[in-house]
């Protein structure tokens, strides 16, 4: 075994070992927060109908009065088995919720990334290339604004401004697309229902922009600063000295290097995208996991909320670990 591969393996194992307590702390937090909030699923659904004795009997039957350690142990078991349990309020497997609605969240997140890339990359490049120009100032200002304005503000504003005229104010209603992949637009493509594809895409635009605005500022700033640094590099000077065209210098050499840190940062934005997706889905009635999460929070459905938040958290932890691994693979300094 070479010294290099040994250090990489050690780094990966250490990173995984560190992730375990992080996940455990997170599980405890999710569990405690749900219990600290007043109420439970029984009183949320039946509190306006049943007397105190009947409510207590139903709480007991559902196990909500079981000792906390017992409830936490059950929760841990459900996480370890990746089962996540069955919701109380509508008797669904949490795993099914993730599978059935994950496709919509994935589609929305992808749409947001495409929007952020299509806007962020050219604006970042222009801002970096034309440093201190009007375009640069405008691009930076747009980046700061889009980063600063939360989804809860941006999404309703977009809805008010464009929702009614574009037909996107009303939620997506699809009736006859058979479920195959649980990604609606893909399912519609598979059966060749292009009307449905158009309708789904139409409804995807505004939520994607609302969510994409959350990260487009990061894209612009990262690309701009990295491009500026790249353009000051010796290899750029050398390329220019060799008579390489300016477009090739920027596009092929500077841009490529400027994109490396962006890809790293992109991974770290997953958490932000997921949290933003919860609000975006709710505001645009997009049928993803986030919309489900808010419904279940309102119903105090411990099992559903714990399960969904845990899955979100695991996704973020796994992605950040993967990015660390890639960084460690590319840059040996990281693992020492």
């Amino acid at each position, binding site marked *: 075994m070479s010294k290099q591969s040994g250090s990489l393996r050690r780094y990966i194992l250490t990173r995984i070992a560190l992730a375990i307590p992080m996940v455990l702390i997170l599980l405890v937090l999710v569990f405690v927060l749900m219990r600290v*909030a*007043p*109420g439970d699923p*029984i*009183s*949320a*659904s*039946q*509190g*306006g*109908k*049943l*007397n*105190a*004795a*009947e409510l207590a009997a*139903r*709480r007991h*039957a559902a196990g909500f009065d079981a000792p906390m350690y017992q409830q936490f142990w059950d929760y841990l078991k459900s996480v370890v088995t990746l089962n996540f349990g069955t919701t*109380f*309020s*509508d*008797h*669904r497997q949490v795993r099914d919720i993730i599978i*059935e609605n994950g496709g919509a969240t994935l589609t929305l997140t992808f*749409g947001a990334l*495409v*929007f952020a*890339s*299509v806007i962020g990359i050219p604006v970042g490049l222009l801002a970096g290339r034309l440093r201190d120009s009007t375009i640069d100032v405008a691009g930076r200002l747009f980046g700061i604004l889009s980063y600063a304005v939360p989804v809860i503000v941006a999404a309703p504003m977009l809805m008010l401004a464009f*929702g*009614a005229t*574009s*037909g*996107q*104010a*009303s*939620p997506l*209603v*699809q*009736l*006859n*697309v058979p*479920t195959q992949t649980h990604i609606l637009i893909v399912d519609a493509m598979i059966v060749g229902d292009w*009307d*449905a594809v*158009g*309708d789904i*895409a*139409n*409804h*995807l*635009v505004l939520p*994607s922009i609302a969510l994409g605005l959350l990260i487009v500022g990061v894209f612009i700033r990262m690309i701009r600063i990295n491009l500026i640094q790249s353009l000051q590099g010796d290899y750029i000077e050398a390329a220019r000295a060799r008579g390489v065209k300016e477009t090739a210098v920027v596009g092929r050499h500077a841009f490529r290097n400027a994109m490396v840190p962006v890809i790293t940062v992109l991974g770290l934005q997953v958490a932000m995208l997921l949290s933003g997706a919860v609000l975006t889905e*709710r505001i645009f*009635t997009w*049928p993803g996991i986030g*919309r489900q999460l808010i*419904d279940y929070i309102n119903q*105090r459905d411990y099992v559903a909320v714990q399960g969904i938040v845990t899955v979100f958290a695991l996704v973020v932890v796994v992605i950040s670990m993967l990015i660390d691994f890639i960084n460690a693979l590319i840059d040996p300094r990281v693992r020492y």
Partner: protein
Amino acid sequence: MSRTKRVVAAAAVAFLAVGVTACGGNKDNSASGSKGAVIVGTIDSVSSLDPAGAYDYGSWEVIDSVYQKVMRFPTGGTKPEPDAAKSCAFTDPKTYACTLQSGLQFSNGDKLTSASVKFSFDRMLKIADPNGPSSLFGTLESTEAKGADQVIFHLKSADSTFPSVLATDAGAIVDEKTFPADKLLAGTKVIGSGPYTLDKYTAKQQASFKVNAKYSGPVKAQNSQFVLQYFAEASALKAAVKDGTVNAAFRTLSPTDTADLKKTQGVKVVEGTGTEKRYFVFHAKVKPSDQKAVRQAVAQVIDREGIAKDAYNGTVAPLYSMVGNGIDGHTDAFKDKYGAPDKAKAAAILQAAGITAPVALSYTWTPSHYGAAAADEATAIKRQLDASGLFNVKLSSTEWQQYQKDEKAGSYASYMIGWFPDLPDADNDVSPFLSKSPFLGTGYDNPAIQALLVKEQGSNDPKVRNEAFAEIQKIVAEDAPIIPVWQGKQTAVVRDGVTGVDKALDPTMFRFYELSTGK
């Protein structure tokens, strides 16, 4: 350019192209693939497709279409009539016997017999799901199947409301070959013998129904397919009505949304009698509500018409009785006793009791359970009571989960409570509030009312029952532990071309089978 880069670039260009097209506006927003189905939008949610686990309106909307019951409420009626049964009758006060129709089948072809009925009730009581309706059948001792078509319900005590309880969706009949006996059915492939089959169900998104060819019963469906589209927010539902994504909307648009839709071209707002009620409740053991004169003075001052107009744009109707408008046994007891709002009379009541005005009274409401207009209602109540000069009302609000805990514990002197009855029977409007174990905290226990409740529950004679209800309402108006404020109207919104909504707006359950697009 590498292949990967080309693919990424193509995807981005495609997304942009779609976006540009989309931003150009979508002229036809009708649901893709609807093919003439009636699409009804709602913000209700479904807790269970299995009747043994469902005790909420959203679930019952589905169950009512997919399953049959022994008895049912006819469209526009509150007296139960046979559904799967040919006939039913009390053979003694504690025995209710039914004969089923012959040749009944579930949608999968299985036969519906007395064994199916016994199985359905036995499993519902055995499962006793914490979210289920078993508490509605508190008086049911056992169910007996005799032959293929005889079902006998043995009751623990005389219960005149039993036929009505049977007619709720808690009494839905399930296929014993499909449903497990001791747990809820997993999944969405439910089998019933009702007028529709559940063709496709996506939780929190959509339920699609098709007419059940094997159904034999009194319902004559006016459509061959209808779809329930679930929305998270009323604002989204309103938008969907406006642009025609749904043909109709039912439950629940806010008064302002309804007013806005009334002005929308191509949209019709239809109102019908509702069952939701709102009460001003006192805790009779908390000062100053422990004094009858204080409660009576409030009842004398409250202007229900004003609340209905100011807080609800006239979408609710004043209520002067614990028993809902239109229900057998209803009397306008509070109107009879107090007449029109009168400050002078209220001042005299307080003066006679030696109480010095203004009386400091706290009134609590919740912003997270009764809709946005609850805030307006609480404000209107405070304004009216303060304006009388007899009260100094302190408003406070608490989140629903804590609210119900507090009101049951007697933490509030007075508070707001809402009620959706399970069945159209006067008993269901009074006993949950006035029995020995009410569902809310009132601190009020009147032996005379308890005796009257036993009397009406034990009699099948409408005259005896109505006399008991009249007396109960009279006592409540006199003691004023609870002041009825309003009864909601049901509102449905339909797009042009949808017919049958007048009949569909039934107080017991929305009748989806009455709707038609004429296609």
